[in-house]
């Protein structure tokens, strides 16, 4: 047998060994930790949110912003100037020019079904999960910020400074883009996003848009609701009523 290992053999042998280890190791680690969520997400669900601006008070929105900061660990950047600071969720006032009615919106990534941020990303870092949640893969993000320019909702931020002490579930770092993750780390465990839990009323409803028995699905069937900039045909996962 030829003793030198070519690249292909090397990969073949190592991957064979790897499979062996995975099997043994899974038995071992299972006794150490309890594992969760072994099954990949599918497109049988689509996560969404319905925000009722008539019920949502300004204090509620402030609460949502701080709940998000606390959960995800953004907002205490020391060296970034005002416009450089991250903002995953914002309080936005909109005024109907004809009637003068002012509404306060909580505006975060709208988790578009046809996300422009994903379309323009040159490295595939901007991505949509099967269940509709739009994320940034920071392993691939080169910080070009095309996605920030493409997003009609100004939902994304760029990290301008070196960070430390990040949340364990939310890696963040200088030179990458970030935005609302719909608290995917919680959703994957069957929990509800932090901003939604922070609101005491039912002004914000979170759930599976496809599930006919979900509260969000049933509410959307009965109340008037809108997508912001519906004319763009992005089919957003976050919807609003009362505007």
């Amino acid at each position: 047998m030829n003793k030198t290992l070519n690249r292909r053999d090397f990969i073949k042998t190592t991957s064979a060994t790897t499979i062996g280890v995975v099997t043994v190791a899974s038995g071992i680690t299972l006794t150490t930790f309890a594992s969760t969520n072994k099954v990949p997400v599918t497109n049988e669900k689509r996560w969404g949110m319905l925000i009722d601006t008539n019920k949502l008070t300004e204090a509620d929105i402030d609460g949502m912003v701080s709940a998000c900061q606390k959960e995800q660990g953004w907002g205490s950047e020391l060296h970034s100037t005002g416009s450089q600071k991250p903002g995953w969720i914002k309080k936005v006032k909109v005024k109907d020019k004809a009637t003068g009615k002012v509404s306060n919106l909580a505006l975060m990534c709208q988790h578009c079904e046809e996300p422009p941020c994903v379309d323009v990303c040159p490295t595939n870092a901007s991505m949509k999960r099967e269940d509709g949640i739009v994320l940034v893969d920071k392993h691939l993000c080169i910080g070009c910020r095309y996605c920030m320019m493409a997003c009609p909702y100004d939902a994304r931020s760029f990290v301008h400074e070196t960070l430390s002490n990040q949340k364990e579930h939310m890696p963040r770092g200088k030179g990458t883009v970030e935005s609302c993750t719909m608290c995917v780390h919680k959703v994957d465990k069957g929990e509800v996003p932090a901003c939604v839990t922070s609101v005491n009323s039912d002004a914000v409803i979170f759930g599976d848009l496809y599930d006919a028995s979900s509260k969000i699905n049933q509410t959307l069937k009965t109340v008037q609701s809108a997508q912001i900039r519906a004319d763009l045909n992005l089919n957003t996962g976050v919807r609003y009523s009362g505007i």
Partner: protein
Amino acid sequence: MNRLLVIFLTLLVSSVFAHTNEHASLGEQASSIKASGKVFHESVSIIRKMHPEFLRHKRDKTLRQGVRTDEYSLKGCVSCHANKDKTNNQYHSVDKKGQFCSDCHEQVSVSLDCFSCHRTTPKEDSL
């Protein structure tokens, strides 16, 4: 060329071995697992050689498919291989000089990028 590659890899791996065999900062939990005789990584040589591939595979599955198992999770590596400062009871960052991750990476001159985004100590304590 291939022969050279094999020689290079052998040198690389054996220098890691030579170094880590005398490694003092394995990490508290990792040390106690080792001392108890239990096996965590079935083969130390494979985890040494393959850990970047395991982590890369795991990161893609977690981020893109929502598969959140503990196996090969960077969180798990950090929580097991971190050391506490005996005087103030605070964790040392695993990427700081003399700590588990950086020691080995420094020895083999491989840069350690994970921790420009990932947390370097176990869970949230002082936030």
